[in-house]
């Protein structure tokens, strides 16, 4: 009894030490990569903007300023600090084609874009993980059926497939998210399947099986937690792709519908004004770029930090 307790305590201690040190090492490695830090800083700022948009935005993003302020359609930015006359209302990013404050719309757009990225990737990860795990764990015909379906999905150019799905479901942000989620399932399913294949041969899995653990137990308690690492990297990079795809769909008028402040649709609706009112085309594009860049930098950093082969570098 005493012995057993001791062993259990030791075991727990070992596990806690191990898990703490794994995350600590990951964090440490991540912080050593300056690109990842930059990514995290940008992302942090974007998250803060998204969470506090209603307090920091100077205007309601849907408010039409006709008759409220002396501003003109597609007016250039007016920043008091840079010499714009004080008697004119300040609009940091100018006025859009419907006489709304572009800056407020950009800020609220952060909220939409981050939500797009997180929700589609969460959806894709959940479905992809389940499919990949089943496929990798059971093998045989289950594996064959699931993976062939994934191959078919992968054979389409992802944006075209998304457009096809949205066309069938009808335009709209929810349908666009669903479409992007569906087209990104295969990459997660493949990643999870690969990790499951390698993890399921591990000794502790065999041990659990020998102890009579159920399939469910083995798969979700033993295998999946240990197969997560590549998924985190894939997911972070996948958010960037999802945001880009959603912006592309909205640009084409298939995603977010007006008047929702979505960067892609803001850019798309003013695309003919690129020489007349460059701020309306350039700023949403810049915002998309910044967001995608932050996720890509962070994803790259995470990949390096989580890669055991690079462990000796730290």
């Amino acid at each position, binding site marked *: 009894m005493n012995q057993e307790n001791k062993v259990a305590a030791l075991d727990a201690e070992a596990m806690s030490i191990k898990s703490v040190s794994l995350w600590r090492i990951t964090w440490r490695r991540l912080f050593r990569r300056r690109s990842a830090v930059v990514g995290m800083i940008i992302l942090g700022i974007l998250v803060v903007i998204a969470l506090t948009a209603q307090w920091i935005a100077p205007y309601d993003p849907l408010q039409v300023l006709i008759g409220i302020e002396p501003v003109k359609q597609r007016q250039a930015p007016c920043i008091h600090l840079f010499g714009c006359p004080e008697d004119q209302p300040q609009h940091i990013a100018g006025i859009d084609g419907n006489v709304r404050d572009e800056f407020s719309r950009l800020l609220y757009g952060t909220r939409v874009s981050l939500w797009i990225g997180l929700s589609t990737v969460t959806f894709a990860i959940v479905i992809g993980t389940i499919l990949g795990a089943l496929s990798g764990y059971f093998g045989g015909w289950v594996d064959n059926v699931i993976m062939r379906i994934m191959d078919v999905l992968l054979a389409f150019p992802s944006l075209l497939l998304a457009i096809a799905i949205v066309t069938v479901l009808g335009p709209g942000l929810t349908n666009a998210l669903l479409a992007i989620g569906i087209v990104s399932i295969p990459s997660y399913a493949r990643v999870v399947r690969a990790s499951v294949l390698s993890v399921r041969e591990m000794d502790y899995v065999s041990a659990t099986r020998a102890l009579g653990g159920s399939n469910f137990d083995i798969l979700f308690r033993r295998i999946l937690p240990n197969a997560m690492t590549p998924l985190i990297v894939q997911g972070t990079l996948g958010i960037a792709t999802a945001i880009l795809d959603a912006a592309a769909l909205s640009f084409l008028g298939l995603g977010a519908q*007006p008047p929702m402040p979505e960067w892609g649709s803001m850019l798309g609706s003013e695309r003919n004004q690129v020489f007349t009112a460059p701020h309306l085309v350039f700023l949403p594009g810049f915002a998309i770029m910044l967001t995608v860049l932050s996720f890509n930098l962070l994803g790259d950093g995470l990949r390096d930090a989580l890669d055991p082969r690079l462990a000796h570098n730290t």
Partner: protein
Amino acid sequence: MNKKLFALLSVLVLASMILVACGPKPTDAPATEAPMTEAPATEVPATEAPTAEPTPVPDVPIATYDGTTLSVPDCDYGGWFKSIEATDPSTVTFTLCKPDPAFIQKIAFSVFGIYPKEWLEATAGETGRTSEGLEKPVGTGPYMVSEWARGDSITFVANPNYWGAAPEAETLVFRWSTESAARLLELQAGTIDGFDNVGPDDFATIEGDSNLHLQIRPALNIFYVGMTNTFPPFDDVRVRQAVAMGIDRQRIVDTFYPRGSEVASHFTPCAIPNACEGEAWYEFDPEAGRALLAEAGYPDGFKTSLYYRDVVRGYLPQVGNVAQDIQAQLKENLNIDAEIVVMESGAFIEESAAGRLNGFHLLGWGADYPHVTNFLDYHFGKEVLQFGALDPSIYEPLIEGAQIADPVAAAPFYEQANNAIRELVPMVPIAHGGSAAAYRADVTNPQASPLTTELFAFSDPGGRDVFVWMQNAEPISMFCADETDGESLRACEQVIEALYGFEPNSAVPVPHLAESCVPNEDLTVWTCTLRQGVKFHDGSDFDSTDVVATFNMGLNIGAPTHVGNTNLWDYYAYLWGLMSKPGE
């Protein structure tokens, strides 16, 4: 590596700031000019394409022509003309298949200008007009084509034998430039005397310059928000009236339309006779609108859709923005949640015309000919399904009015129809999209015709010998019987005359080559008495056989002279119907 990344990032941020700061103000806009280049009158009809589309099986001619009479055996071919006959040298009799109150307005269109019979035959090639026919048309107009330097200019000289008042300037020159800013520069430099399609942002400049004159062109088009009354809640007239009061139309015109546009008081633009009989549209009154909605059982508004096609027209220069503004106004003023649905153009026209759109639809119409029937009968006639089931109180007066050629006698019926439209609100008329021309201040009689038929013979360029006009584009050809392009038609109008024309700066027809055209009792036979002593540019005399030969050239697909530039004959087909039947 990391340093490079930082550098790259900072360069990007800096570059973006510089670009935004140095970008031209939204006002220097060449991009917003596009819609204005469209001539309202000659624009291919907005909501209905011309019916003349080339068909794979060639059509079979059905007309007979003997030099004095053009006729078809029966009216089954669907066109307007039964026969056109030169009854004597100065009389032409047009026999129609159905009554047409707008006969004079249609015949006055410059596409139906009269050519000499011999010239039509001489310039007809095997498959198209000869270059002589395309570039040096012979007509009866105040000017004759002297030289067309392709890519540069067209020079006209005064017709010494002109039947009317001699042209003010001896020489007329047409030039072109696609940039409105470039046109304005030329005008300011004094190298041209006038130009068309003033850029939206140059209005103030021209008005502020005492050497220049801005001439606003009355708009002959309409943009409206349609509702199909077979779908609830639009089946309740109070809901439609609420919408009629709940949209601030002035704000839409002020923000999204070029100067020269106006808020629509009636569906038909007021430049057209009888268009604005009856009461003007509702004042903007959101409270009254909300009260009406509440009375109809929708105190909290309702959810619906707002359909449009992403196509720029003279009547709707900024489609997406106007749609979003209407959406915002419906929400703010009436608490109606309208989801925007952008449709493909063809599907949109088909669905809206069939009355299958459950919600609001944004559409417009440009005049084919300046007659009230071209607006009202096309939209509110008995057979029209676009707005659901139309009430007889709208279409019955229209049927009555279409039987009467005299505008004064027809006025009471159009008053009834307009009042019924206002009362029952099948749609909300929003705007007539306008444009403007600019002239040097010393040009007399400056013109900006609603039909873009400016006749420069009336204008004296401050005593100078040469009048230089600059438009958007070079004419495609000057054989305008077979053209639809407004820039081409304006050049032809200086040279070719039809039986009727239009008063300067108005849509009121005046006799040109005819002295008068008089209908019979039921408007099916129009007898035109021709002007005497008129000579063509080539010296030949004008008489009734030239009129019949011209219509034979345009309508009779079997005629050897039925060859033009495009060989589509869009306007002959659309306004009269080609004399043909489908091939087997």
